[in-house]
C-alpha cells in the first residue's frame, strides 16, 4: 500500500467515511437528521473532487493501483462522476420523501453512500474478486434500501424479490468466476485476455464462465431475459431510491460488461467474435422489443419506467455488439443521459405520488402539468428525452449508439432499434398528454414538494436539455478520453 494507492482510493474513502459520519451523527445527534441530505451531498461533491484528484494524480491513463486491482482512467473518472450524479439526484429527491413518510434517518444516507462506494469500486475494479465483492457490497446496500420503507408491504416484497434474485444470480456469478479462473489461471481481466489470446481455442468452461458473468451483470442492468425482477422492485421500493436503483447499478454494470466482453473478444480463436456478438445482439434485441412492448401496456408509471429501462439497456447493448474502443463513448453518453432523464423522472414521481403503497397510476397525473408547471415540465422533458427526441440528451445518447451500430454494419439492428423506440415514443407521450391534455381527475393530497426535490427535478431536466443542445464539449472530452489507450 503506497500513497498512490491511497490517493487512487480517495473517492471511495470519502464516500465510505461520509457514510460512517452520517451514521454516527444519527446515533449521537438525531436532531440533525434534516441536515443529513446536505451532508451527504457535500460528501458526494467531495467524492467527485476526490475522483478528479485521483485521476489527476494518476501517473498514466489508465493507471493501476492496489496491486493492479483498481484502475484510474478517464473512463472510470467519467463514470464515477455519472454515478455520483445519480447519487446526488437521489439524495435531493429523497429528503422530501423521507420526511413525508416519517422515515428520515441516517441509515438511508449512509447506505446510499456506501452503495455508491461499491459502485465506484466495481466499475474501477480490474479483477473478478474485487468486482464480486463490490457487487455484493452494493447489492446488500440496495436490498436494505429497498426495504427501507418498512411500513409498506410492497417495499418488503420488492426487497425480498430483489434479494432472492440477487443471491441466486450471485451464485451464478461466483460459479462463473470459478470457471473463468480455472480456465485461464487468473482473475484479472488483463491476464484473462492475454491467456485467451494465447489459446488456440477457448475452453468451453471459460466461455460458460463468461456467459454466467455476462448474465449476472445483465441481471444488474435488467436485460431481457434477466429483467423480470425490475418492475416489481421498482414499483415497491421507495421512489427516490428507485431514481438511484434504476440508474446507478446499470452504469457500473455496463462498464464491467464492457470489460468482460473486451477480455473475451481478445481470444484469438475464430468464431468467438461472432458468437459473442450474437449473444449481445440477442440480449439487445430482446431487451428493446420486450421492454418496449411491456412498457407500452403499463398503467403504473414506475413499472412503465422499469420496462422502459429494460428497453434502454437494449439500446445501450447495441453499442457493445461489435466491441471496440469506440463503443465506450456512446455507452458513457448513453448512461449519462439515462441517469439524468430516468432519475429526473423518478424524482418527480416521488414527489407527485403520496401513497407509496399503492399503484402509481399514470392517469393520476391528469392535468397536473398546469397545477405543477415546474415539476410537470421537468417530467415532460425527461419523458421526451427518454423517447429520444431532440434537443434532449436522450437523443444524443441514442444517436451515438445508433451511429456506432450503423458504423459496425448493424443496420438491421439499428432499424429494429428505431422501430422499437417508436413504441417507446408512444408511451412516453402518454405521460405528456396525461399531464397536459387531460382534465384533472385527482386533487393532490399529502404531497410534500420541497426545495431539494424540485432542485433534483430541475437539475435533471436542465441537464437533459443543456447537454442535448450543447453535447459538443462533453462529447469531445469523452472521445479524447476513450480514444487514449
Amino acid at each position, binding site marked *: 500500500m503506497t500513497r498512490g494507492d491511497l490517493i487512487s482510493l480517495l473517492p471511495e474513502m470519502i464516500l465510505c467515511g461520509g457514510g460512517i459520519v452520517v451514521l454516527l451523527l444519527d446515533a449521537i445527534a438525531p436532531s440533525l437528521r434534516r441536515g443529513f441530505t446536505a451532508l451527504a451531498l457535500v460528501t458526494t461533491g467531495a467524492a467527485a473532487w476526490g475522483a478528479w484528484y485521483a485521476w489527476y494524480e494518476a501517473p498514466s491513463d489508465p493507471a493501476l493501483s492496489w496491486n493492479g486491482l483498481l484502475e484510474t482512467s478517464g473512463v472510470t473518472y467519467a463514470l464515477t462522476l455519472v454515478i455520483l450524479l445519480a447519487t446526488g439526484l437521489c439524495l435531493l429527491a429523497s429528503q422530501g420523501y423521507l420526511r413525508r413518510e416519517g422515515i428520515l434517518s441516517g441509515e438511508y444516507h449512509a447506505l446510499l453512500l456506501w452503495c455508491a462506494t461499491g459502485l465506484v469500486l466495481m466499475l474501477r475494479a480490474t479483477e473478478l474478486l474485487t468486482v464480486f465483492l463490490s457487487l455484493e457490497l452494493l447489492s446488500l446496500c440496495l436490498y436494505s434500501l429497498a426495504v427501507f420503507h418498512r411500513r409498506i408491504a410492497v417495499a418488503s416484497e420488492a426487497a425480498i424479490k430483489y434479494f432472492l434474485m440477487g443471491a441466486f444470480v450471485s451464485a451464478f456469478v461466483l460459479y462463473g468466476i470459478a470457471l473463468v479462473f480455472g480456465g485461464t489461471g487468473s482473475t484479472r481481466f488483463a491476464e484473462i485476455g492475454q491467456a485467451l489470446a494465447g489459446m488456440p481455442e477457448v475452453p468451453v468452461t471459460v466461455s*460458460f464462465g463468461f456467459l454466467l458473468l455476462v448474465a449476472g451483470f445483465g441481471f444488474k442492468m435488467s436485460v431481457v431475459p434477466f429483467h423480470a425482477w425490475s418492475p416489481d422492485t421498482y414499483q415497491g421500493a421507495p421512489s427516490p431510491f428507485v431514481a438511484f436503483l434504476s440508474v446507478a447499478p446499470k452504469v457500473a454494470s455496463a462498464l464491467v460488461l464492457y470489460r468482460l466482453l473486451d477480455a473475451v473478444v481478445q481470444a484469438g480463436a475464430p468464431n468467438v467474435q461472432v458468437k459473442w456478438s450474437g449473444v449481445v445482439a440477442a440480449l439487445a434485441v430482446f431487451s428493446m422489443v420486450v421492454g418496449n412492448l*411491456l412498457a407500452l401496456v403499463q398503467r403504473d408509471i414506475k413499472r412503465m419506467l422499469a420496462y422502459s429501462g429494460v428497453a434502454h439497456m437494449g439500446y445501450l447493448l447495441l453499442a457493445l455488439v461489435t466491441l471496440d474502443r469506440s463503443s465506450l463513448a456512446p455507452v458513457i453518453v448513453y448512461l449519462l443521459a439515462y441517469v439524468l432523464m430516468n432519475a429526473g423522472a423518478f424524482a418527480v414521481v416521488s414527489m407527485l405520488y403520496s401513497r407509496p403503497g399503492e399503484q402509481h397510476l399514470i392517469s393520476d397525473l391528469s392535468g397536473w402539468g398546469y397545477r405543477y408547471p415546474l415539476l410537470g415540465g421537468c417530467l415532460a422533458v425527461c419523458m421526451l428525452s427518454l423517447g429520444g427526441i431532440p434537443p434532449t440528451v436522450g437523443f444524443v445518447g441514442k444517436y451515438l449508439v445508433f451511429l456506432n451500430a450503423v458504423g459496425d454494419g448493424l443496420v438491421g439492428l439499428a432499424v429494429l432499434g428505431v422501430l422499437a423506440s417508436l413504441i417507446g415514443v408512444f408511451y412516453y407521450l402518454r405521460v405528456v398528454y396525461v399531464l397536459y391534455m387531460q382534465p384533472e381527475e385527482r386533487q393532490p393530497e399529502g404531497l410534500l414538494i420541497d426545495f431539494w426535490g424540485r432542485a433534483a427535478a430541475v437539475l435533471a431536466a436542465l441537464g437533459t436539455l443543456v447537454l442535448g443542445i450543447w453535447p459538443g464539449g462533453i462529447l469531445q472530452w469523452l472521445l479524447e478520453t476513450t480514444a487514449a489507450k
Partner: protein
Amino acid sequence: MLDLLWLIPILPLAGAALNGMLGRRPPKALVTAIGVGAPLLSLLLALGCLWQYAQGHFPNDYPNTLYAWTAGPLGSSLNIDVAFLLDPLSAVMLFVVTFVGFLIHVYSVGYMGHDPGYRRYFAYLNLFMAMMLLLVLGDNYLVMFVGWEGVGLCSYLLIGFYYEEPFPPYAGKKAFIVNRVGDAAFLIGMFTLIAHFGSLKYADLFPRIAQTPSLVQGEYFAGLSLAGFIALCFFVGAMGKSAQIPLYVWLPDAMAGPTPVSALIHAATMVTAGVYMIARTNVLYQLAPGVSQFVAVIGAATAIFAASIGLAQTDIKKVLAYSTVSQLGYMFLAAGLGAYTAAVFHLGTHAFFKALLFLGSGSVIHAMGCEQDMRQMGGLKKALPQTYWTFLIGCLAIAGIFPFAGFFSKDEILHAAAGRGQWVLYLVGLFTAGLTAFYMFRAFFLTFHGRFRGTHEQEHHLHESPAVMTIPLWILAVGAITSGWVGLPGDLNWLHHFLGHVVRRPAGQGEPAEHHVSAFLLGLIALAVAGAAIYLAYRFYGGDRGLEKGRTWAQRYPAIHRLLANKYYVDEIYDRLIVRPLAFLSGFFWKGVDTRVIDGAIHTGAAATEIAGDVGRLSTTGNVRNYALYFFAGVILLFVWLIL
C-alpha cells in the same frame, strides 16, 4: 390611342373593384356611374383603338406587352407575358363585346334597378367585361385562358346571383364544374404546346407551324397527330365554354341568372369564346382535318339536338337558351368546315340578335313580374309594343329571313357546307334552320299573340319597360338587321377580307376544293324553309288556341314530347353515369380505403402491438421463482448458442 389598348380590360376591372369596395350602402347613382361608366369608357377606347388600327396597322398585328408573367433567363424555364394583341379577329370580337356589353349594362340599369344586389351585380358584370376582354385581347393562350376562366367565374357568380334561392347557386356550380371539365382539356392542349414549342404566344406558334407543318404532323397520340391532339383538346375546352354536346347541360340551367346576364354572357359573348378560340387556332385545325370534321359533326349534332329540345320548352328563357346552344352548334359547324370567317360572322350577328331576344324576353319578364312561363303569357303585343317589335326583328333575324343579319351569316355556313360537299351536314343545318324558325316563332306567338293567360294581377301590372331598357333594344335591333351586311355573299364580303389575314394557310395546304354551288339558290332554299317553318308556327300557335294545339300534338306523340320536354334525360343520364358512381367511389375511398384499409391497418398494427404487450406482461407473474427460471432459461439458451 392604341398604346392604351391594355386599358380596355383594365377599366371594367377597376370598375368592378371600385364597386366592390364601395361599402354596404353606397348611393345608387355612384354605383351606376361606375358600373356603366367603365364599360362606356372601354367602348370608346375600343372604338378609338379600332379606328386607329384600321387606319394604321391593318392587316398587321398590333401587340401590346404589359409585363412578364413568368420569365427566366434560362432556356428551360417558361416565358409568358401578360400581353395584348389587336388583329382583325380580336378587333371584331372587341367591337362585339364592348358594344353589346355596354348596351346590356345600360339595359341592366333599368332591369336591375330595384334589386338589393345592385352594386354586387354591377361589380360582377364589370368583372365579366374585363375578363371577356382579356380573353379576346390576349396575345397568347395563357391570357386567353385567364379570361376564359375569369368569365367562367363571373358566369358562376352571376348565375348564382340570387343566391338566397336554392336553385341559382346550384346552377352556377354546375356551370362552373362543367366548364372546368372543358378547361382541363384546354389546359392539356396548352401544356402540349408548351412541351413542344415552349411558347403559348400566337405570334410564335402559328407562323412557325404554318411554315413547317411537319412539326405537328405524324402520329402523336392514339392515332392523332400533334395538331390533332392539340386541336381536340382545345375543342373539348370549347365544348365546355360554348355548350356543345356533351357539355352543353349547364347552359339551360344558367338561365337562373338575371336576364341581362343571360343576354350578355350566355348568348352574346362568353359562350362564343369557344368559337373564337377555334378561329384563333385555325392553323392547327387546318392541319387536323379529322378533328375539324369532328368539330363540324358535333356542331351540327348540337344544332339539331338543341333545336329539337327547344321545340318543347315552355320557359321563354329556356327556349332562348336552347336556341343559343343550337346557334353555337352552327358556329362550330362552320368552324369545323374550315369556314372560320363564317363562324365568326355568325358569332357577330348572333351576338346582336340573341342579345336582343334575351333582352326582349327580359323586358317581358320584367313586365310580367318575373314570370317566365310562356303558358302564362300571350297577347302582350298591346302592352309592350316596343318590345314586341324588337323581339319580332330578333326572331326574323334568327330565323334567317332576308335581309336580317341571320340570313347572311347562316347562309354562309350552309354555303360552306354545300361548297365542301358535306351534304349531310348541309341538310342537318338546313333542317335546323327550319326548326329554329319554328320554335322561335312558337315562342313569339305564344308570348305576344293570342289572349292573355296570366293572373289578373299580372295583367293589371303589365307595362312597357322604361327607356333605359327599350333604347338598347332598339339599338340592338338595328344591329340585328344590319350586322349581316358586312358579310354579303360573294366578293362583297367585307368581313371575309378583313378576317382573311387571320386564317393562315399552312404551307403545302392548298385552298380547299370548292364545289360551285349557287349562293343564290342556296339562299332561296334556306329562305323557303324558314318561311315554311314560320308559317307552320303561325298555324299552330298564331291564334288564341295555340297552346291547346300544341298540347294536342304533345298528346299525339307522348313519348317524343316527354323526351323533348325532359331534354332527352341527359341530366339524369349524367347523374347516373358519372356523378353517382363518382360519389359512390369517393365514399368508398373515404369510408373504405381511408378508414377501413389504411387506418384499419394502422390501428390493427397498434392493437397487435398492444396485445403483444398484454400477453407479454403476463410473464411478470409476481412470483420471483418464475423470474429466476427466466434467468436460468436465458443462461441455458445462450449457452446452447455459444457451444453450438
